[in-house]
């Protein structure tokens, strides 16, 4: 049974249909890579899944409960957000909080956790992403890779059932990409359920077990990651993979 099941998700901006009926299945422990050219709707899909954008229609089945995307209630959104986490392309760390403060902020304010307990969890999360020597640093004092690892720690601290990653390495200098991908690899090994919009084909190939290939707001091909990379069914998918490979991915 799927942990997250999306059926017929639609979204338009103005008159422009950006997502044209997306179906998606994510099982517990799955690492799903969402691939596709720019403008195919990958990021919008991810943002709809965490209600940063409001989808126009579709059903959202999560953790055994079904919701209608066209008429989400505030409490339902809050409920789903408690069990999910989001990692942004641009990190979006709170600039006025230290690394530890970034991780504990949601625990203290949203979950009403005592400060001491939140900080214990926060330190654990930062240790896990290899930042045990950076608790008191402000985002501005950290490299891009370190900032993104703080963002991952912030996501982990809320003990989500699934983490959405929106191109987590796209804003990073090439030499900093590895440290972030390593953390994500480790999470995947530990069985964390992850939905990752990415351009890192090698990461998708090595770490993901499911691949969704999107184009023009629709899923063109989806399935087991091994089969997808070994023998993509669609000509368009083959072409996409070939282009990326030419660019050294």
């Amino acid at each position, binding site marked *: 049974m799927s942990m997250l099941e999306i059926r017929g998700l639609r979204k338009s901006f103005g008159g422009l249909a950006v997502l044209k009926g997306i179906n998606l299945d994510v099982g517990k422990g799955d690492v799903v890579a969402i691939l596709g050219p720019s403008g195919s709707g990958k990021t919008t899909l991810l943002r709809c899944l*965490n*209600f*940063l954008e409001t989808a126009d229609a579709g059903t959202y089945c999560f953790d055994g409960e079904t919701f209608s995307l066209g008429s989400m209630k505030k409490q339902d959104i*809050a409920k789903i*957000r*408690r069990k*999910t*986490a*989001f990692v*942004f392309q*641009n*990190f*979006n*760390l*709170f*600039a*006025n*909080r*230290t690394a530890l*403060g970034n991780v504990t*902020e*949601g625990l*203290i*304010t*949203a*979950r009403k956790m005592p*400060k001491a307990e939140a900080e214990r969890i926060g330190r654990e999360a930062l240790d896990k992403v290899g930042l045990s020597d950076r608790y008191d*640093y*402000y*985002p*501005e*004092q950290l490299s891009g890779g370190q900032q993104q690892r703080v*963002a991952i720690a*912030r996501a982990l601290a*809320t003990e989500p059932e699934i983490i959405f990653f929106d191109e987590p390495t796209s804003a990073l200098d090439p030499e900093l990409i590895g440290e972030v991908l390593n953390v994500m690899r480790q999470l995947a090994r530990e069985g964390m359920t992850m939905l990752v919009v990415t351009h890192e084909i090698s990461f998708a190939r090595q770490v993901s077990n499911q691949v969704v290939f999107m184009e023009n707001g629709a899923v063109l091909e989806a399935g087991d990651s091994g089969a997808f990379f070994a023998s993509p069914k669609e000509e368009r998918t083959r072409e996409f993979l070939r282009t990326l490979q030419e660019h050294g991915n």
Partner: protein
Amino acid sequence: MNERWVKIFIDSFWKILLPGLKLTIPLTALSFLFALIIAVAVALVQFADVKGLKQLARFYVWVIRGTPVLVQLFVVFYGLPSLGILLEPFPAAVIVFSLNEGAYASETVRAALESVPRGQIEAGYCVGMSWLQIMWRIVLPQAMRTAFPPLSNSLIGLLKETSLAANITVAEMFMSTQRIVARTYEPLLLYLEVGLIYLIFCTILTRLQSMGEKRLKTYGGKRSNAGGKRLETDGGAR
């Protein structure tokens, strides 16, 4: 130098400074405090795009910015009694200056709110925070740092503007000076003197501003800047 002048200057100094300390400064401080509260509320309402309230906020800013503060003083102090609303001079002045300064400051605060990257708001939602929590703990603290220099500027402007309260019989520094002039017939000396005292007040405010700015360096802008760091840890309403 004329001995009489020196004597008048020295005799008047306290007579001008004292109403400055007793009226000009409290009038400025109170009005600015209320103005800040109004400004944050009016800016937040617009930032959040609250239907109805946003239009009301724009209307308020439009009217206040479009009319002279002297006219506003006269309407409130001399005009409102016709409607049965009688105010003492000092409270009337506080009300007018608060509303006036609040309109200008709200635009400063609004711009500062807009300058905080939206992504931080989204990140706040994603960790489960409410809009108010995000505003209070993440966005406003950053915005108020950005707004600090222009708001200090407004405060200095307001301090001098309070001299207009003389027109509604608040016996602040300027009015006290006028009274001394009426007795001594030394307008040049005394108006220069009151100008000098305003200058002293503003110099102190300018000093305070630059001290404040030093403490409010960007978050962790310098590891060695222990002052700025401490301020943040204390200030972070934990």
